[in-house]
């Protein structure tokens, strides 16, 4: 089941920028997206974890590029969210592969699918909400916001690093 979900999510995540590029007259990037998708599915079959990280970086870069090139579009947010979820599913499939016994796997897959659905809902909702918020600030407030964001993110990552024991 999870393999099918991964393929579906990967298809959604990379077909969105492909369609957007196609419609705005950049077919070369559409073909590039299709190539990445093919490679990703192939590498999942082979169990190449390195390719998963690579595709995530390239996919996000492609989405960011499309956000700069094309008028800001909500679809790009969805694509990024699905890209992240596909990346997670790839890792999850590798985790499942480690188990020889398949008796409890189906239950685990269902649970994971439910968690992911909740995450997609939350992430897409918050991202969409953030797009429609309009704040008019001065340059000074923007600088303060940037500094606060940076400190906040650094604190979050430090917390993650400490809790993983690395």
């Amino acid at each position, binding site marked *: 089941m999870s393999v099918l979900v991964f393929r579906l999510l990967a298809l959604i995540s990379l077909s969105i920028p492909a369609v957007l590029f196609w419609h705005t007259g950049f077919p070369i990037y559409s073909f590039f997206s299709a190539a990445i998708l093919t490679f990703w599915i192939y590498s999942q079959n082979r169990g190449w974890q390195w390719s998963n990280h690579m595709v995530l970086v390239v996919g996000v870069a492609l989405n960011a590029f499309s956000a700069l090139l094309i008028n800001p579009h909500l679809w790009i947010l969805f694509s990024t969210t699905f890209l992240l979820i596909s990346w997670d599913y790839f890792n999850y499939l590798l985790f499942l592969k480690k188990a020889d*016994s398949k008796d409890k796997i189906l239950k685990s897959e269902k649970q994971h699918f439910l968690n992911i659905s909740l995450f997609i809902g939350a992430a897409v909702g918050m991202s969409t909400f953030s797009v429609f918020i309009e704040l008019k600030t001065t340059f000074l407030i923007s600088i303060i916001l940037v500094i606060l964001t940076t400190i906040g993110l650094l604190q979050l990552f430090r917390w993650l690093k400490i809790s993983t024991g690395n």
Partner: protein
Amino acid sequence: MKKSIYLLSLISFCLIFAGLLTLNPILISMAIPFVIYLFCGQITFPVKVDLVFTRSLSIERTFPGLPVDITVWVHNSGSSLKDLLVDDLLPDRLSVEHGSQRHIINLKHGETVQWKYTVKGKRGSYNFDSIQVSFRPLLGIKNEKTHFPTKGKLMIFPEITNIKRVAIHPHRTRVYSGEVPARSGGTGVNFFGVRKYQSGDPLNAINWQASARHPYDLFTNEYEKERVADVGIILDGRERINISNQDDSIFEYSVVAAATLSNAFLNQGDRVGLLHYGKFLDWTFPGYGKIQRERIFRVLTAVEPGHSLVFSYLEYLPTRLFPAGSQLVLISPLTQEDSQVLLQIRAIGYRILVISPDPISFEKRYLPTSSSSHLALRILTVERELLLRKLVRGGIQVVNWNVNEPFDKVVATLGRSHILHSSVVVV
């Protein structure tokens, strides 16, 4: 999973800064899923893991190739856990026959889960010290591995075959009755000689034919005493001569021979000691009976060939460990330079029986059939034949064991020989 955290952190940083630089809200919004993902991964990771593992083995002492059932119980005393990958780490030389040692399980508070699997293995002493558990939170930002201590030990003894009797004839024997001819007259089974009649000799022991030739004297038959003997088994574990190929090693045959012979000698009532000559000297002090058999088998279960600069040659073989005039059994594939040392040991009064697993027949299995390999095998066979003949001429009993044949069949040839003081070569 450190890599994943860095990767997602880097992506979210880059997106936020790119968004701020270009004043593009979409880029900043794109970072939100990544930040939520990192956050959810953190908060869904189990805070307290309180698992208790128990393992039980259907049998703790067995022989190669026989199945052993392993049952594992895991009890969760802490909070509910999901997606636990439990891996009962197995040593390399054990293989799973049925079931699986790796499971993904979900455990509620107070729940106990058990599973069973069957393993088979090669000779060795295996400790099951721990079970590895990998946790994966609901969103897999972290994948932490923890080892839980467990108990369990499996000993797979070397395969043995039952041999009724191994014919040896040492110079000295011990005082207790046994099965080894003691080179002196007394009560026994085999005819030893004739002596003058002494009062008290039973009438059925009188040799009437000899007495008829001497009208004024009577003669009595004497039989050879049978006593227990001191036997020192030397297992040659020098890495340079114990060739191995893929999963197979000629050393395994040496171990089988050592186990079979020590079992046979102890069954005969002999006093047996074992010396493993390899990386170091592993000396099992001589003894009798079942306890000694257990000691020797435990040593043979764990022995491996090893390399040592000191013990690369047999010249440092400590013969003083063995009683003078006792029977030594050397189990070794042999090399050319070993002959000199063996002849010296023979010269100082020890009886030596060499059991030599044939490295040529062992290696032949793995060689391609070609004219060059055929020629090489012929040359090596001639060299080995000369080496063995040299030993036989020096008064050493030699058994050249073609490892494609069962050991008991080869040793039976030795057992049938009644002329024990002459040497036997089975080629």
